[in-house]
């Protein structure tokens, strides 16, 4: 398998090469240090898959990906990025990349990604899969916390971040007994029974950060 790599950082290219060296079927045929060079190499060389950094000097990111997909529609491009999945991940996949992997992923994960993409598959990390799943099921009416009123939602958030009833009362300019009433209503609406369960719910749905 002939691989084209592009990254403006020598240290990352070095790491990539070392990692790919462990795979006897992989050969690096070209190394580019910026987007324009990457595109030029892609036109000149014979290659089967490309591993590109998302942010490079010159043409990069979605623009570069778009060019690659237009000129070499059949060949997979795996995007390597410093940015976490929730920022660019789904956009990059929608832009036609065969995979999106962050640079802080474990080396084994990168190896897996390369193998999968080389075999014509798509690589999606577990965390990106979760993001995509939540985007797909983004019918906002479905999530239980969307049924909370705005005020209930904020009380829920304050409870989930560990605030006491009295603190919440002060923060929102309500009486403590009103806040308690809200709490009861929130737990009922979310089908929960304790503050601990509420914290768990909020974390699982990424409502706190």
């Amino acid at each position: 398998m002939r691989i084209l790599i592009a990254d403006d950082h020598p240290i990352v290219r070095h790491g990539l090469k070392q990692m790919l060296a462990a795979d006897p079927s992989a050969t690096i045929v070209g190394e580019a240090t910026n987007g324009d060079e990457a595109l030029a190499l892609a036109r000149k060389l014979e290659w089967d898959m490309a591993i590109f950094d998302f942010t490079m000097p010159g043409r990069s990111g979605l623009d570069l990906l778009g060019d690659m997909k237009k000129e070499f529609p059949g060949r997979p491009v795996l995007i390597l990025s410093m940015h976490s999945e929730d920022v660019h991940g789904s956009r990059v996949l929608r832009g036609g990349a065969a995979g999106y992997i962050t640079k802080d992923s474990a080396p084994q994960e990168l190896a897996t990604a390369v193998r999968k993409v080389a075999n014509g598959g798509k690589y999606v990390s577990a965390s990106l899969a979760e993001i995509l799943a939540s985007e797909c099921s983004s019918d906002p009416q479905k999530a239980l916390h969307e049924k909370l009123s705005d005020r209930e939602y904020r009380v829920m958030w304050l409870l989930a971040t560990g605030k006491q009833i009295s603190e919440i009362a002060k923060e929102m300019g309500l009486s403590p007994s009103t806040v308690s009433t809200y709490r009861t209503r929130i737990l009922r609406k979310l089908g929960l029974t304790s503050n601990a369960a509420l914290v768990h719910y909020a974390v699982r749905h990424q409502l706190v950060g």
Partner: protein
Amino acid sequence: MNDVAHVPEVEAEPRAEEALEKAKILLVDDEPKSLFALQELLSQLGQNLMVAQSGEEALRLALKNDFAVILLDVRMPGIDGFETARLVRSRDRSKSTPIIFLTAAADEMTAMFRGYEVGAVDFLMKPVIPEVLKSKVAVFVELFRKSERLRESEDKLRRLAAHLISVREEERAHIAREIHDELGQVLTGIKMEVGQLAKRLTDPALLAKTDSMSKLIDSTVQTVRKIATGLRPEMLDDMGLIAAVAWQAKEFQKRTGIRCRAKLPPEVKFDIDISTAMFRIFQEILTNVARHSRATRVDIELTLGAEQVGLEVTDNGVGIQDDELTARKSLGLLGMQERALLFGGDVRITGTPGHGTRVSVTIPLSSRKPK
């Protein structure tokens, strides 16, 4: 991605300095003799004297020049002094130009009242007493110079503010890039090396070490990302304003528990400086919501037209009070105004007690500030 903002030049304009040195004074009289006398008398002030022999001529000159004071003969054929004054004053540029009427002694008090009505600041009876005329005109020249200087220093301050804003933005972008790219990439490299190292190890104790090293690198990468994004979100440069606003709204909801609903146009990228200005204004609005509003909900609407980009943020909090809007210390609000003004835009804030605050921002897309 490199040119985040253009730096406006902060320089005094030499031409303005010259104008400050010599104020323009307009003398209007239909009699060449009295005109000559006035000229002689006032030439001692060392200012730039201009003369007109009729109301029409005076109007023509007033169209093109800013006068420190106009000396106007009341009785002239054609347009008389009063009419000339009314016309001069009706134009925006010269609506507060001081006018001193010169009248023959025969003119009665009624004429004086008419004169004040059309904007006279003083009356002098002919024949004028040289010392009186000279000192009166000198006062207006001084006044003119002072307001010129004030206008200029206001302009300088505005340009300085603009300069500081863009320098800060540039610096933030630069630091964010350095931290994120350089530091981040080195960490990535180290992580890869540790991975290579781990492959050759068999001792469980050593493997536990490389494992914890790897985790430590991960959390450092997270920190690096957080710092860089705090300085300048990469979204803004990579994906544009609309994506960045969506991201910021989501972050805000996560961070404050205040529900955000955003109505956004399809994602497109446009002028990065205007995008940056709008984004920073948006951040400032959210900061204010979190700090002062006690809101539980924020509605955001971003509109992108051919001519302008508009942002409307409405919360359901306590509502900003008028005295808070005008309070001297509301520097944050002033900062938003300045940012918008830099691109010919506008920020309007209205609060209804108990019913929340609405901030509307518009920035024209066409009129980029000249470099």
